């Protein structure tokens, strides 16, 4: 349990600048989700905190003290890797016991057995404890590697897309489970994902990375409702935010060249006429594909909407987001 401070972290791999001056304060007990496309620096951030890589510049402080001189073992963090994380020559039981047998913890065996059993129960892999780690399905492997982080009580949990290889049902279950573990332990989590549901439901804070820079850091609702740029705005929201030329609608503020419309920013039934191209019934939502002055946009509608392709629908922006030519938020 500890506060984590990243202070101006930079890291280059050869000619690639992976991180550039990233600073953030992760409060004790926070669940921080890092968002960004591949190559944005999410995994590098985790590796610098864990001590697997050393930063070129900047500092990492855990619980108020700089840990740059510490080995990964001394930093007392747990990390769940995206892949290749189980020791293939060990059984599931020995994989889970591995951190507890380390020279740093060195628990007595009966205590290890009990703890491993507990964690296996939580992750529903108790019946697989004596299997070889390589004899598991992808989902089971991922649960074991989460389990290996959970057996001890580290100061920080670092998770690199831990649920990405699971099927939808298991992912939903483990999402709730991880959130419950976070609440129970009150531990600090740093979590990398591409999945917006994970980001929105689990995070207390979201950090958005773009090409090695932290572009926005805040509560998930804040990031969703008040993005600083089109880049951040497109990270969250299903369907994605519609970005259209500002001139399509009246009332554009000075400097604005793009208007950002999420479905809730589109008032239907009044304003300019748009043509319905297609209706998609996804089950939980019904998407309406519209064309307005040659630009496509997607919004949501009622599941029992009588609209069909070729119909005309009037729409009007309501409290939209405006961006300048560089994609920076104007209002």
């Amino acid at each position: 349990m500890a506060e984590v401070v990243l202070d101006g972290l930079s890291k280059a791999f050869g000619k690639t600048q992976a991180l550039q001056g990233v600073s953030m304060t992760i409060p004790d007990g926070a669940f921080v989700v890092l968002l960004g496309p591949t190559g944005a620096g999410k995994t590098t951030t985790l590796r610098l905190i864990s001590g697997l890589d050393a930063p070129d510049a900047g500092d990492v402080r855990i619980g108020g003290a700089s840990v740059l001189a510490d080995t990964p073992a001394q930093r007392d963090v747990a990390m769940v890797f995206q892949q290749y994380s189980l020791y293939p020559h060990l059984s599931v039981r020995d994989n889970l016991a591995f951190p507890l047998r380390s020279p740093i913890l060195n628990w007595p065996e009966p205590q290890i057995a009990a703890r491993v059993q507990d964690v296996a129960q939580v992750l529903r892999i108790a019946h697989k404890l004596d299997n070889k780690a390589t004899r598991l399905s992808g989902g089971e492997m991922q649960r074991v590697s989460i389990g290996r982080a959970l057996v001890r009580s580290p100061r920080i949990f670092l998770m690199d897309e831990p649920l990405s290889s699971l099927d939808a049902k298991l992912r939903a279950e483990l999402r709730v489970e991880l959130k419950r573990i976070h609440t129970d332990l009150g531990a600090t989590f740093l979590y990398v994902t591409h999945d917006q549901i994970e980001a929105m439901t689990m995070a207390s804070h979201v950090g958005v990375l773009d090409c090695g820079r932290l572009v926005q850091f805040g509560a998930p609702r804040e990031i969703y409702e008040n993005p600083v740029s089109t880049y951040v705005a497109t990270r969250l929201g299903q369907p994605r935010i519609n970005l259209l030329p500002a001139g399509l609608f009246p009332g554009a503020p000075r400097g604005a060249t793009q208007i950002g419309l999420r479905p809730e920013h589109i008032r239907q039934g009044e304003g300019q006429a748009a043509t319905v191209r297609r209706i998609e019934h996804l089950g939980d939502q019904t998407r309406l594909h519209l064309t307005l002055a040659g630009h496509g946009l997607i919004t949501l509608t009622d599941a029992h909407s009588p609209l069909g392709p070729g119909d005309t629908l009037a729409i009007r922006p309501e409290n939209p987001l405006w961006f300048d030519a560089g994609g920076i938020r104007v209002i």
Partner: protein
Amino acid sequence: MSAWSVTEPSARSKGIAAVLVILYTVITLLPLVWIIATGFKTGPDSISYPPKVIFQPSLEGYVNLFTDRTRATPEQLAAMPPPENFVDEIVQRRGEVITQPSKFGARFLNSVIIGFGSTFLSIFLGTLAAYAFSRFRVPLKDDLLFFILSTRMMPPIAVAIPIFLMFRQLGLSDTHLGMILLYTGVNISLAVWLLKGFIDEIPREYEEAALIDGYTRLQAFRKVVLPQAATGIASTAIFCLIFAWNEYAFAFLLTSGTAQTAPPFIPTIFGVGGKDWPAVAAGATLFLLPVMIFTILLRKHLLRGITFGAVRK
């Protein structure tokens, strides 16, 4: 549906394969069988012409291998007590007496010490070097690796004279240490290259996970890398042992007494009045055993070693 299948070979090709395999087996095993059989023949049987395939087995060769004997006069023989065991019986029947045990036991032991010692040292140093080359940023890595490999670009015996002179200067001639160092020097390039290949195949993530799980790099190496490299280590060890065990030229040149290994010793076994072929064959048979046992013990690893990296786990 037809009886023909792309994956299942036809009965005819299976038949041809079986014949070829049997033929190959016979060709490779025949000399081996001949050596083992000769070890159990009597002296006259071993050189009879036409060669005897069916013969009365005898332990004469093995007795001769382990003993030095001399011919006894009829009076001496008559004065001797009746033989107490089969060894005395065989010797006395031929009118000989045992003077002392032969040097074969000591030479064989030298082979074991030098062969396994140099294999252990090659693997120990090779594993550490291969790990460093695989994982760390070593300055001039490619040049160093090439240099290590280049030591194998000529037959080792090409440098026999410089080595002979060096060993004499350093007092390493005819010592166990000298032979262990020499065979290690020859084997280490093979060990480093083979093992580097195996360690390269082990994803770094395993060690990184262990580092975070509270282990130091050395502990992670021991607990995570070594068990996974076991296959590679086993197959490399077999190759090293086979070289060191069978090496003849250097052993002939650099050892004569205390550190002489079995290969230069076995052909020098003479019986009373002539080459003692059964004893030579018995020595060769016993000499084959350790490598055979070692290979059989590690064969599971060896097979996995051959396919290593081909199958994604």
